[in-house]
């Protein structure tokens, strides 16, 4: 289960977007789901020191703008980064 501390441990949060976002036009339910496995595992990479998680947030924000999404917040763990997006 969750505790209230989950509201205070984001690795990134955009309060301005959170306060101003209006979803009135987001009428369509079904989502588009894109999954890309660049490598089967981290051990396949030539240099595991640099991975997708090495790409900085600003670059992801730029990529997501092309999708018409903005980043509301991010939770990071040892193994992954989970982005919560607009739309």
């Amino acid at each position, binding site marked *: 289960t969750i505790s209230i501390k989950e*509201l*205070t441990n984001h690795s990134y949060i955009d309060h301005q977007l959170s306060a101003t976002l209006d979803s009135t036009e987001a009428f369509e339910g079904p989502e588009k789901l894109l999954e890309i496995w660049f490598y089967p595992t981290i051990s396949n990479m030539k240099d595991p020191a640099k991975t997708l998680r090495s790409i900085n947030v600003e670059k992801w924000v730029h990529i997501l703008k092309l999708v018409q999404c903005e980043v509301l917040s991010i939770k990071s763990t040892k193994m992954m980064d989970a982005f*919560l997006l607009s739309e």
Partner: protein
Amino acid sequence: SSLFVYDHKITLKTCGTTTTLFCLEELFKIIKDELNWDFKNENGKLEPFKVFYSRRCFMFPAKQHSIHKNWSDEIEYLNKFFANGRSYLVGRNDKGNHWNLYVTDTNKMMIKESPQEQEEQPYNDETLEILMTGLNPNCAQQFVCNRDVKDIKNEPSTNNNKGDADDEGHLLGYNMTKKSGLDKIYNNVKDVSFHHDAFAFTPCGYSSNVVMDEEYYYTLHVTPEKGWSYASFESNVPVNHVSKGEQDNVQVLKHVLNVFQPKEFCLTFFSKEMSNESFTKLMNIVKQVTSYQKKDRIIYDLEDYQLLYMRFERS
């Protein structure tokens, strides 16, 4: 919408009229520039390890942008980028509720270099997705908040504030998760780590990401509007692992259905093997969801994955 970034893969799930595939060119350019990863083959096509693109058919396809209005246009676009892609239309083509899938052949050159692969994936890499329409109005109402949107667009940005709880959308999202019981879908008997992030949109709508055991996620997206209400649940959490065998994906499905009580739902389940315990149990759930009638049950052998697709309507 949600994005999950692992060291070696991404999962991007986007709602509404987003233009998901328009990120591909820039995504691969940035990956080449930043990481020196170049997946182009001698024909100029991209060959990463594996690509999946899927969606249920839209309720309002004409309102989508550009290629996303039409499945065949999306496939043509994907084929410009990727080598060895193929597409499937799953379910009844004459009904407005089928499901579409595009998948590339696995780049087996990478597997040969990875003898430890099986050791690194002890939980069989499974993904369960439940797509629900016609939500019970009382259930859908839990995801309506009607908070005020502030007109502060010209004020300085407050991005990247760590440890700041002063955020109404996230607070209401948190409350919706608690109230609906969506934080208790899995019996976390193993007491693995649990990270939650949710947001309540205005005038309505809800998105949440949960990360369990640092590496597995489940994500929910809800558009509760009467007339086109919709909810989705997607998870790669290995239920047997986190529940120490006390729970299975049938119980997970029942929990999710109980929260939304949809008129109709379809489920898709990907696993490496048909002998996967969850695959077998889900294939035989008809007697366990007695309020629903099975309309479709389709199994695809996708080379190195097995796909189960089932669609149900309330009796």
